[in-house]
C-alpha cells in the first residue's frame, strides 16, 4: 500500500477534501505532528512514498528544505500544494506541484505519476547498489587472482583466500580445515568477535563432518583424530565484549571443498548473520576455485623442493664421506710406504732376492692404492667445488716434454714406441700445469694399458681454429667452440673403443660395468676426472677410435689473448656460477654504478660475496665480481693482473686491488690479498 505523509492544515476545507480523496483511494496516511525535527523523525519511521506539503503551513519553505536534505537517500517524492493565483519562489524545492482549487482528476494523476517515479527511483537505486557491490567483488577477485599467482607458499595462499572473502563477503565467522604437506590437519577459525569454546568445538566437529561428507562414497584420504587437529584462531575485534556463541551456527552459511581435480586440500565454511545473496555465492565459489590451482602448484613445488633438498644433502654426505675415508686411508699408507722402503734399502738388515721381489710388489700396489685414493679425492673435490686450480700463463710444451720423460721408459719396457711431435711454437695459455699434466698422464696411462707390444703411442700438439672442430664429435661440451685452441692428441694402436661406448667412458666407474676392460685394473675414475679438469680449463675433448685399430684422444685448450674475456670465462668456471660480472668502467665515481647494478639486479649480483677492482691511478678499469671466492680465484687474479699490467705498461704502483665489499668480507679479502703479495704501493 502506498504511504503518504501529510503536512497539511487540517482546518482548511480543501485540505480536508484531499485527505478524504486519499483515504477513498486506499492510501495509508500519516499526519505531521509537533515541530520540524519531530516531523523528520516521524517520516524516518513511517518511510512514506509521498509527502504532501501545503504552502500555508508555518515555515513551509524551511520544512521542505529540511526534508530534502536530511531524507535525500529515501527517494521520497515531495509535492507542494499552492493556490493557483499565488506566486511562490521556492517551488523548485519540491518534486511536484498541485494547484488549488482542487481538480480531482489532475490531483490523482499527479499523485500516481509521482508514485511511479518513486518506485522507479527505488529500483534504480537498488540496481546501482548491486552493481557497485558486484563491481567491488569483481575487483577483489581480480586482485586476488594476481595475488594467488604471486606465491607458492601454502599458508599465504590461505591467508589471501580469507582476506578476499572477508572483503567481498564480510563474513562473521569462517571455519577452514586444511591439510599441510605431511597430511596433518589444521583447523583455522576467523571470527569477528571472540567465539565461545562451545562454538569452536562445534565448528571443528562440523568441519570434520563436512570433510567426511565429501568422501562419503570414497575411502577417506586421511583418517582424522579429532583431538589432534591443530587449531588456529584469529579474532578481528578483540576489544569488543561481544561473543559468538552456538547461535552463530544458525547464521546463513556457505560451504565448499577446496579442491582441483583429485587434489583435495580441505573444506571451508562461512557464516554470516545477514543472508548471502546469489552474487555472494558466485563470488565465494570463484575464490575457492581460484585458490585450489595455486595450492596444487604449491604442493608440487613443496614436494620437489623437499626431494631436491634430500638429494643435495645425500650428494654432499656422499662426497664428504669419500673425502674423509680417502684421507683416513692416506695417513696409514705413509708409514707402510716408509717401512717398505727401509726394508728394501737393506737398512733393516740383509734381505733375500725373493723378499726384495715381494716387497717391491707390495710397494707397487701401495702406489696403485694411493693413486686410486687420489682419484677418489679429486672427484669428491670436483663435485663439491673444492678443487683449487692455480691458473698461470704457461707453456704447454714443457708439460708435454715432461710426459715424454715420464712415460718413455715405461713404454720401452712394454716394447711400445713412444713419440712426441710438436711442429710449431705453441702460444702460452692460462692453465694449471699440474692439472693439465694430470689430464695427459691419465690419457697416456690408458693408452699404455690398452696397447700391446710392438704398438705405438704418439703425443702431438698444434694450434687450430674453432671452425676446424667437428662439433658433433665433442663429448658433452660446456660451451660452443670459440676462437683458437691448442689441440693435444694422444694416439695409440691399442684395442680401441666401440663407437657406442665412446660417450660412456667419461662416466663415473664406467670400467666397472664393462667386463672387457675389467682385468686391466683401475676403477675407471681417470677419464671422469680428465673430463672435469678439461671443463675447468674451458676446454673441449673428442675421441676417434676404431676397434682393434686404436684410439685418438684430442684435448682442446682455449687460447685467450683478451684478458677481459678470459677473466670473465675463468671467473665463471672458477666459481661455477654465472653471476660473475666484469664491468668496464671509467672513473672511480662510477663505482656507484656497481651499487646501482646490484640494486636493480641487472646482473643478478645479489649473492655477491666479494669484488675485486683493478685500478690504474684514478681510473678503475675493470671490476670483477667473485662470488664465494677461493684461494685459487685470488691466485688466478694475480696472474691476470700481472699480464694486464704488462699490457697497459703500468708502473707497479699503478695497479692495486681493492675490495669494496662489506667490512667483514672486505677485511678477509684484503688480508688474503696482502698475504699473496697482491697489494703494491
Amino acid at each position, binding site marked *: 500500500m502506498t504511504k503518504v505523509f501529510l503536512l497539511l492544515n487540517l482546518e482548511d476545507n480543501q485540505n480536508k477534501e484531499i485527505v478524504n480523496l486519499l483515504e477513498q483511494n486506499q492510501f495509508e496516511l500519516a499526519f505531521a505532528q509537533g515541530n520540524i525535527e519531530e516531523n523528520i523523525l516521524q517520516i524516518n519511521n513511517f518511510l512514506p512514498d509521498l509527502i504532501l506539503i501545503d504552502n500555508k503551513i508555518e515555515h513551509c519553505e524551511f520544512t521542505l528544505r529540511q526534508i530534502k536534505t536530511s531524507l535525500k537517500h529515501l527517494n521520497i517524492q515531495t509535492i507542494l500544494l499552492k493556490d493557483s493565483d499565488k506566486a511562490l519562489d521556492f517551488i523548485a524545492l519540491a518534486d511536484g506541484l498541485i494547484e488549488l482549487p482542487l481538480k480531482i482528476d489532475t490531483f490523482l494523476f499527479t499523485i500516481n505519476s509521482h508514485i511511479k517515479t518513486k518506485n522507479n527511483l527505488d529500483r534504480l537505486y537498488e540496481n546501482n547498489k548491486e552493481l557497485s557491490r558486484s563491481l567491488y567483488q569483481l575487483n577483489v577477485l581480480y586482485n586476488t587472482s594476481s595475488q594467488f599467482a604471486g606465491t607458492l607458499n601454502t599458508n599465504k595462499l590461505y591467508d589471501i583466500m580469507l582476506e578476499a572473502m572477508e572483503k567481498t563477503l564480510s563474513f562473521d565467522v569462517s571455519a577452514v580445515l586444511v591439510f599441510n604437506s605431511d597430511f596433518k590437519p589444521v583447523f583455522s577459525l576467523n571470527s569477528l568477535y571472540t567465539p565461545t569454546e562451545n562454538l569452536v568445538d562445534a565448528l571443528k566437529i562440523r568441519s570434520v563432518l563436512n570433510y567426511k561428507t565429501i568422501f562419503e562414497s570414497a575411502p577417506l584420504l586421511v583418517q582424522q583424530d579429532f583431538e589432534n587437529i591443530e587449531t588456529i584462531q584469529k579474532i578481528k575485534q578483540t576489544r569488543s565484549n561481544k561473543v559468538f556463541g552456538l547461535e552463530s551456527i544458525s547464521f546463513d552459511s556457505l560451504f565448499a571443498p577446496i579442491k582441483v581435480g583429485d587434489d583435495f586440500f580441505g573444506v571451508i565454511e562461512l557464516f554470516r548473520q545477514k543472508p548471502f545473496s546469489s552474487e555472494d555465492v558466485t563470488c565465494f565459489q570463484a575464490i575457492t576455485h581460484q585458490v585450489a590451482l595455486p595450492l596444487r602448484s604449491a604442493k608440487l613445488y613443496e614436494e620437489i623442493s623437499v626431494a631436491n633438498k634430500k638429494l643435495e644433502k645425500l650428494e654432499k654426505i656422499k662426497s*664428504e664421506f669419500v*673425502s*674423509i675415508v680417502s*684421507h683416513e686411508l*692416506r*695417513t*696409514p*699408507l*705413509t*708409514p*707402510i*710406504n*716408509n*717401512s717398505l*722402503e*727401509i726394508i728394501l*734399502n737393506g*737398512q733393516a738388515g740383509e734381505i733375500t732376492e725373493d723378499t726384495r721381489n715381494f716387497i717391491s710388489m707390495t710397494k707397487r700396489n*701401495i702406489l696403485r692404492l*694411493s693413486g686410486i685414493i687420489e682419484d677418489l*679425492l679429486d672427484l669428491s673435490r670436483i663435485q663439491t667445488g*673444492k678443487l*683449487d686450480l692455480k691458473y698461470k700463463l704457461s707453456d704447454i710444451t714443457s708439460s708435454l716434454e715432461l710426459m715424454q720423460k715420464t712415460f718413455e721408459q715405461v713404454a720401452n719396457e712394454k716394447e711400445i714406441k713412444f713419440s712426441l711431435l710438436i711442429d710449431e711454437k705453441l702460444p702460452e695459455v692460462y692453465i694449471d700445469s699440474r692439472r693439465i699434466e694430470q689430464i695427459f698422464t691419465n690419457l697416456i696411462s690408458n693408452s699404455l694399458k690398452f696397447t700391446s707390444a710392438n704398438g705405438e703411442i704418439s703425443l702431438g700438439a698444434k694450434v687450430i681454429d674453432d671452425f676446424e672442430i667437428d662439433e658433433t664429435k665433442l663429448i658433452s661440451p660446456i660451451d660452443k667452440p670459440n676462437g683458437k685452441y691448442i689441440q693435444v692428441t694422444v694416439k695409440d694402436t691399442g684395442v680401441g673403443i666401440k663407437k657406442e661406448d665412446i660417450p660412456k667412458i667419461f662416466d663415473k666407474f664406467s670400467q666397472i660395468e664393462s667386463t672387457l676392460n675389467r682385468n686391466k685394473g683401475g676403477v675407471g675414475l681417470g677419464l671422469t676426472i680428465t673430463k672435469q679438469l678439461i671443463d675447468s680449463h674451458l676446454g673441449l675433448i673428442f675421441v676417434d677410435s676404431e676397434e682393434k685399430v686404436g684410439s685418438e684422444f684430442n684435448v682442446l685448450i682455449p687460447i685467450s689473448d683478451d684478458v677481459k674475456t678470459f677473466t670473465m670465462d675463468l671467473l665463471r668456471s672458477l666459481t661455477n656460477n654465472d653471476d660473475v660480472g666484469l664491468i668496464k668502467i671509467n672513473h672511480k665515481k662510477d663505482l656507484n654504478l656497481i651499487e646501482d647494478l646490484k640494486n636493480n639486479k641487472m646482473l643478478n649480483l645479489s649473492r655477491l660475496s666479494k669484488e675485486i677492482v683493478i685500478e690504474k691511478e684514478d681510473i678503475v678499469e675493470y671490476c670483477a665480481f667473485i662470488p664465494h671466492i*677461493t*684461494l685459487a680465484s685470488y691466485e688466478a687474479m694475480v696472474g691476470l693482473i700481472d699480464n694486464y699490467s704488462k699490457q697497459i705498461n703500468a708502473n707497479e704502483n699503478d695497479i692495486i686491488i681493492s675490495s669494496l665489499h662489506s667490512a667483514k668480507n672486505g677485511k*678477509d679479502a684484503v*688480508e*688474503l690479498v696482502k*698475504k699473496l703479495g697482491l697489494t703494491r704501493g
Partner: protein
Amino acid sequence: MKKILIADDERDIVETLAFMLRAKGFECICAYDGEEGLNLAKNENPDLVILDVMMPKINGYKICRLLKFDNKYKNIPIIMITARSQDEDKMIGEETGADEYITKPFEFSEVLEKINKYLA
C-alpha cells in the same frame, strides 16, 4: 751433523721418517703434538723443520707462522706435510710462508730431495 725436527701426531710416520733420515746422516728430534713441536723448534736450534698440518694443540700452519714472523727463527727452512683433507681445506688462507709442501702419502726420495735443497 745437521739437525732436523719432525713434528707429527702420527708416531709411525715420525719414527719411519726419522729412521730413514738418520740413515742418511741427519740428527733427528721428534715431537708428537704442536706445542712440543714449537718448543723444540725454539730451544733445540734445528737446521730444518718438518711439520704436519693437522696436529693437536697447535696446528702446523700456526707454528709455521709463529716461526716465520720471528726474526730469530725466520731463516729455518720449513717443510709442511699436508693430507689435503677436508679439515685442512677449511684452513684455506691460513698457510703462510712455508718453504715446501709435501702431500701424504709421500715417497722418502721426495722428502730427501727437498731437504737437500736447503741442507746440502
